[in-house]
């Protein structure tokens, strides 16, 4: 602390007690790691569920004695019941979308690195930040609880349950799908099994999650606008910061809508209202007017779809934009080149985020909407291809002619580009009404969104983890294990999801527990089997990642402050960074974020904090566009 040259005002002192330091911590770094741990826990649960689903799809009716022991109601006698399968689908989707794809990229890596990358000591509102995590945590516990409250057979569901599950079948958890479509989700128990108290908990969990995300988004936006360090102009920020910022804006605008929809849905279920319950309905043997039916009717089930997808589509970008940011960052670092077209990348992020608010209707093409609205939604949807193509082009431009270092982080970043293209291209197919009509609710859709929203985002997070792990824990992850992890996962996910496109084109519908009754789908069984085996292998290889992660925390090679020879502010501080990130020194930024191999520069890479020396030549015309701006300093 002898070199402190500035007056330092800590907003909170380093905590001393264990609880304040590691549990109810105000430090954005601890909160970031808490978010990552929450996401890792959630992803294990979600993956286990997907394995159970694959078991049921490829070996239908098989007796798995262990499942009978674990889930006596869901898998009576060890055979997975259809209701259990549907609740697995629901919980897998909900856990993955909310508690993995939304928490890890933004709450985890964003929380940890946004304040460091803009050169400040913490988030703008550390207390709200802490609340944001713990609220999310409570939401996760409630969601898990939803799995266990649905043991009994629902009123009126007995006959249906017997027909589907062979007698006495119950469910484990809600079965409304992660989208919880009304009216079934709004009716309560009369709608059949899996529509009772579990759905209430499911809605409460999501509502709580919305509040946690809003607190986080508030913090991200204020921090980024208000707390950048000296010289850190907006156009000198790493692209990761732009991505987290845009993600926060999307969350801020879309989660309240889901929250509002969730409140309405819950009131329909428990308050006797009829926001989403239509008139004249016949459900599960019960006609509206029956005493068991809700008192009122006359609502609009489509209203739920509108509210849900107004949130749901931006949510897709909430999941993937941070991955795009991390990918840009990592590609540039390991290609030893500036990001190609920094400004274009920034505008493309905004364009994707902005357009994302006007395309929710493409989830509802078969809802009977007017063909004119369908055309408008379709055109807007396809136009997202333009900024997406700009980003892809610029990623390739960044790689082009670079001196590429194939680290594990780099491999995952390149994998992200590959998966984003592969998954995005089918978005152009599904975005067209005429093609979506036959494809809707088939495995083609499942394959599309898993590739682009699920796996691509996860690859972005893997890249981020391998890249930033040394900064977070002071040690490097094992590269050999990492590369093994990458290649098996990369080949694995394509083996899982490419055949799913074919199944979808053949006409295999989503969310069916079994296909044994459909002769025309029988020929697909070898493919189904292949997908299941690939899924099991891919999930197993994640154990290598988990081993690598926890082993490297304690036994990995010591990293030093800047193992990757990167340029941004997080690499100017020790690994892991001290409590206030820069040990009392306020960093001053003189350069753009990606000054690699700048002609005439004294070194291969120039840190953002390195002052511009007098003998550095002015940049060649045009180069300023590709290296993140901030070159006016050279002219002075």
């Amino acid at each position: 602390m002898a070199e402190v040259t500035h007056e330092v005002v800590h907003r909170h002192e380093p905590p001393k007690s264990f609880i304040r330091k590691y549990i109810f911590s105000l430090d954005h770094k601890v909160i970031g790691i808490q978010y990552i741990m929450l996401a890792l826990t959630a992803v294990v649960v979600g993956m286990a569920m997907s394995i159970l689903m694959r078991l049921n799809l490829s070996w239908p009716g098989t007796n798995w004695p262990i499942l009978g022991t674990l889930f006596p109601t869901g898998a009576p006698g060890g055979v997975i019941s259809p209701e259990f399968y549907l609740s697995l689908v629901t919980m897998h989707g909900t856990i993955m979308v909310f508690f993995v794809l939304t928490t890890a990229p933004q709450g985890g890596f964003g929380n940890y690195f946004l304040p460091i990358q803009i050169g400040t000591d913490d988030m703008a509102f550390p207390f709200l930040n802490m609340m944001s995590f713990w609220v999310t945590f409570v939401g996760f516990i409630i969601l898990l609880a939803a799995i266990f409250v649905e043991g009994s057979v629902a009123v009126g569901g007995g006959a249906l349950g017997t027909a589907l599950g062979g007698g006495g079948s119950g469910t484990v958890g809600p079965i409304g799908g992660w989208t919880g479509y009304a009216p079934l989700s709004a009716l309560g128990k009369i709608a059949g099994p899996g529509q009772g108290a579990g759905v209430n908990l499911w809605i409460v969990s999501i509502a709580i999650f919305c509040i946690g995300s809003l607190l986080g988004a508030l913090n991200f936006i204020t921090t980024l606008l208000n707390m950048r360090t000296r010289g850190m102009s907006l156009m000198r920020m790493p692209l990761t910061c732009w991505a987290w910022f845009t993600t926060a804006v999307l969350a801020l605008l879309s989660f309240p809508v889901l929250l509002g929809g969730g409140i309405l849905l819950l009131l329909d279920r428990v308050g006797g209202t009829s926001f989403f319950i239509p008139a004249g309905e016949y459900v599960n043997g019960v006609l509206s007017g029956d005493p068991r039916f809700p008192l009122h009717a006359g609502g609009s089930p489509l209203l739920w779809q509108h509210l849900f997808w107004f949130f749901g589509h931006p949510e897709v970008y909430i999941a993937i934009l941070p991955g795009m940011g991390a990918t840009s960052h990592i590609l540039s670092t390991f290609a030893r080149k500036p990001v190609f077209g920094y400004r274009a990348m920034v505008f493309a992020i905004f364009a994707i985020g902005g357009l994302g608010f006007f395309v929710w209707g493409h989830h509802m093409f078969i809802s009977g909407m007017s063909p004119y609205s369908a055309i408008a939604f379709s055109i807007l949807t396809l136009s997202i291809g333009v900024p997406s193509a700009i980003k892809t082009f610029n990623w390739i431009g960044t790689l082009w002619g670079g001196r590429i270092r194939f680290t594990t982080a780099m491999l995952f970043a390149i994998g992200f580009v590959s998966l984003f293209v592969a998954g995005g291209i089918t978005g152009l197919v599904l975005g067209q009404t005429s093609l979506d009509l036959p494809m809707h609710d088939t495995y083609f859709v499942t394959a599309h969104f898993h590739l682009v929203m699920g796996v691509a985002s996860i690859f972005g997070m893997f890249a981020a983890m391998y890249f930033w792990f040394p900064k977070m824990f002071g040690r490097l992850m094992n590269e050999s294990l990492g590369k093994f992890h990458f290649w098996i996962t990369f080949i694995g996910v394509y083996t899982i999801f490419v055949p799913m496109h074919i199944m979808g084109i053949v006409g295999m519908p989503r969310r069916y527990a079994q296909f044994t009754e459909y002769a025309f789908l029988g020929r697909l069984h070898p493919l189904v089997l292949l997908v299941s085996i690939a899924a099991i292998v891919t999930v197993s290889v994640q154990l290598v990642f988990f081993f690598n992660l926890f082993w490297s925390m304690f036994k990995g090679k010591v990293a030093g402050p800047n193992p990757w020879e990167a340029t941004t502010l997080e690499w100017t501080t020790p690994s892991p960074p001290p409590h206030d990130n820069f040990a009392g020194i306020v960093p001053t930024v003189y350069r753009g974020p990606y000054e690699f191999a700048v002609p005439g520069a004294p070194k291969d890479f120039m840190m953002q904090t390195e002052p511009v020396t007098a003998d550095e030549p002015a940049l060649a015309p045009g180069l300023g566009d590709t290296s993140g701006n901030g070159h006016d300093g050279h002219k002075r």
Partner: protein
Amino acid sequence: MATTVTSAERVIEKGIGTGPPSRPGNGFHRNGGGSKGDADPLRFYPDRYRLGMWVALTSVVMLFTALTSAYIVRAASSNDWRPIAMPRLLWLSTAVIIISSVTFEGARRSLKRQHDAMYGHWLLITTILGVVFLGSQLLAWRQLVRQGIYLATNPHSSFFYLMTAAHGVHLLGGILALSYLLVRTRRRGADVTAESRRIGAADAVSIYWHFMDGLWVYLFLLLFFWK
């Protein structure tokens, strides 16, 4: 600490991506850094609370936008829409909350003029008016209940209870914030940072309060005057 923008600062704010000597702005008036935000990231500026409050209010706007769109769709989707008669008490609520905005403005101005005693008095009046508003809303609910109108009676009453409750919960948050101001920040801060925190907090709460006032007027018009 100049509060007026000099021409020199204006020139600086135009530059994007320039070096530290000119401390670039970014087009966000006063909030985005510029000369102040960039100057010392570890110092506290009251702007942060104000900015955070506007961001938070954006999400409140989105919540009520969602409820409003549901209201409009639901009103049009079926013939079971029978508007309830407005409880007269809501006029009182409306008057009370509008007056409370005026008194809060009085508090804020006293704070700016460093009349700490006056600031405390105005805050107290505002808090009391806020409680009176909530009480009046509850009484309006009770009037309806006595007439046999409940949440599930018809879609319009559902929306009435839902929206007044959502607004009431937000206003309760405002009352808690006001109590915080009353208890914790009625006295002058010990140093510059504490003082600017005090002013920043009062500023942010006042924005919130005025917003809740406007939101109520909007809901009042939507629920009973929109056709």
